[in-house]
């Protein structure tokens, strides 16, 4: 990026700096396409049931607060319970996952031990055998053990993130110099304390990235809670809204509730997403992580 100013001068001196119209237009089309469903759901959430089916799609209706009231009163406000559950599953799971990834990735990057290569290959296979395929086996086991329909049945599978461990190994390798660890050792700091007080702060930006990836992964995983959970008071938002939808196909009056719920459940994540924008680093080869 440091070369930009000079380049700017060079280009301006040679040719006029016009706006490239075609690429900008293509980009704008992409933006329109992406925002279309979001804009639609915002408008649709203002409509009551008659307006939803009769008013033209982008004309706002009159029932926004009615819909919110209906959503809040549906089964004694179970929607807010779902939102709270989502915060526990995605937020709690992602925090635990980042912690586990940090410790394991740090160990991989900074220690020599027997079986290291074997363990790491095992985890790499875990990166590639995706969580969704495991959901059915996990359910079968959990059901056998009698843990189905508990918070833990969703939380525990969400904690292990092979991809998080993989990333943490890279971050630890790149951001925690060996000399710092050795200096801490010479000062008499225990290995655990060195990890906690020295390595974790240095790895912190990377750990936020792992937290975000895992947050989205848990929030996105529909099949796991859908299989594990039986009682609707433990559902996350995605499962809750889906069950609302299945009832909606029988009673279309529920459609407006589903739409209002979808809109409300997008908002927290969009806010989180915009606030933590600089932590979204998606370099898959990850060699250039600084």
């Amino acid at each position: 990026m440091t070369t930009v100013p000079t380049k700017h001068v060079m280009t301006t001196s040679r040719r006029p700096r016009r706006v490239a119209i075609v690429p900008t237009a293509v980009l704008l089309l992409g933006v329109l396409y992406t925002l279309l469903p979001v804009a639609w759901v915002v408008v649709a959430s203002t409509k009551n049931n008659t307006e939803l089916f009769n008013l033209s799609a982008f004309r706002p209706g009159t029932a926004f607060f009615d819909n919110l009231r209906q959503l809040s009163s549906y089964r004694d406000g179970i929607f807010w319970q779902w939102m709270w559950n989502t915060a526990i599953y995605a937020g709690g799971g992602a925090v635990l996952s980042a912690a586990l990834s940090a410790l394991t990735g740090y160990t991989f990057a900074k220690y020599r031990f027997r079986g290291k290569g074997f363990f790491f290959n095992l985890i790499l296979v875990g990166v590639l055998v995706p969580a969704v395929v495991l959901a059915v086996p996990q359910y079968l086991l959990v059901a056998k053990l009698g843990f189905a329909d508990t918070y833990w049945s969703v939380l525990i599978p969400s904690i292990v993130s092979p991809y998080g461990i993989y990333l943490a190994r890279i971050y630890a390798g790149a951001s925690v110099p060996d000399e710092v660890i050795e200096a801490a050792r010479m000062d008499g700091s225990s290995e655990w304390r060195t990890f906690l007080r020295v390595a974790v702060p240095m790895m912190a930006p990377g750990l936020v990235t792992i937290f975000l990836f895992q947050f989205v992964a848990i929030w996105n995983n529909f099949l796991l809670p859908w299989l594990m959970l039986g009682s609707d008071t433990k559902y996350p938002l995605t499962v809750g809204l889906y069950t609302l939808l299945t009832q909606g196909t029988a009673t279309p009056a529920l459609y407006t509730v589903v739409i209002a719920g979808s809109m409300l459940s997008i908002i927290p994540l969009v806010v989180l997403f915009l606030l933590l924008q600089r932590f979204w680093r998606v370099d898959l080869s990850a060699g250039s992580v600084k």
Partner: protein
Amino acid sequence: MTATAVVSGPTTAGPDPARRRWTPAPRAVPYAFMVPAVLLFAAVFLVPLGYTVYLSTQRTAIRGLGLGAGARKQVFDGLGNYTAVLHDSEFWHSVLRALLYGCILIPLMLGLATVFALILDAQRVRLKRLGRIAIFLPYAVPTIIGSLLWGFMYLPSVSPIDSVLHTLFGSSGINFFGQHAVYLSVANIGIWGGTGFNMMVLYTALRALPQEVYEAARLDGSGDFQIALRIKLPMIRPSLVMTGLFSTIATLQVFNEPYTIHTMSAGAVSSTWTPLMKIYHDAYTGQDTFLGSAESIVLAALLFALSFLILRLTSRQTFGGEPR
């Protein structure tokens, strides 16, 4: 990894850097640090997989009329369930449907992602920040909710796409849930949700390229378009291959989008449309745990074969500089 080398270079220039670096580390510590990960990994990955392999070799034997307490018994069945899976045309059809879905989704999604990434990396383009944020945004929307939104937009009476066409041409509508159209409708949800993430991966790769190359090409009189096509694209080939392979794996296990559309479309998407839907249908709804287990293992094996390919491509160059 170069970063580590640069940082440790000047200070470890003693007589025997390798020994000095590692002497005081207590031997038991790394094992202790690995304990939580190993236990959880075993509990979440290995044991369920092992249990599923076991289940896949079982079947229910029915004695007499199958009534009464002792009439149903679980017995060993060898590879019987696997034979059943191999001969189950619906399972292989679901694999084919997933592949067809992937053939629509992957070229369009990665094509768009590449175009947008190149545009974001080009000069003289406006509204880049808006474009980057907006197009990446669907990544933050769970696929179930994304599918819900699109599902509503496909419903004939609600669809804004339909109403726009209606006002423009007076025609009443596309059937988004038609026999062939439904592939496009489901793929569109995947494109909407996945383009942004892949765009960011490719854009990150583009930003990491040395800028001097473009300057040289520019002096030779190449335009932006030619630079994008002839220089940038070939240079981000590794990232393109990676995103392609990851997307292929993701399509084989697609569930959320078709499952939602299955609920909303009244039959256009069957309950066994993709392999995972078929497994869910057999193991969970249909109560044939044993067949479902065998199907899970077959799908996992298919995915593993693909994964192995990726592993070969990526792991070697990433961790060169660490102690083994």
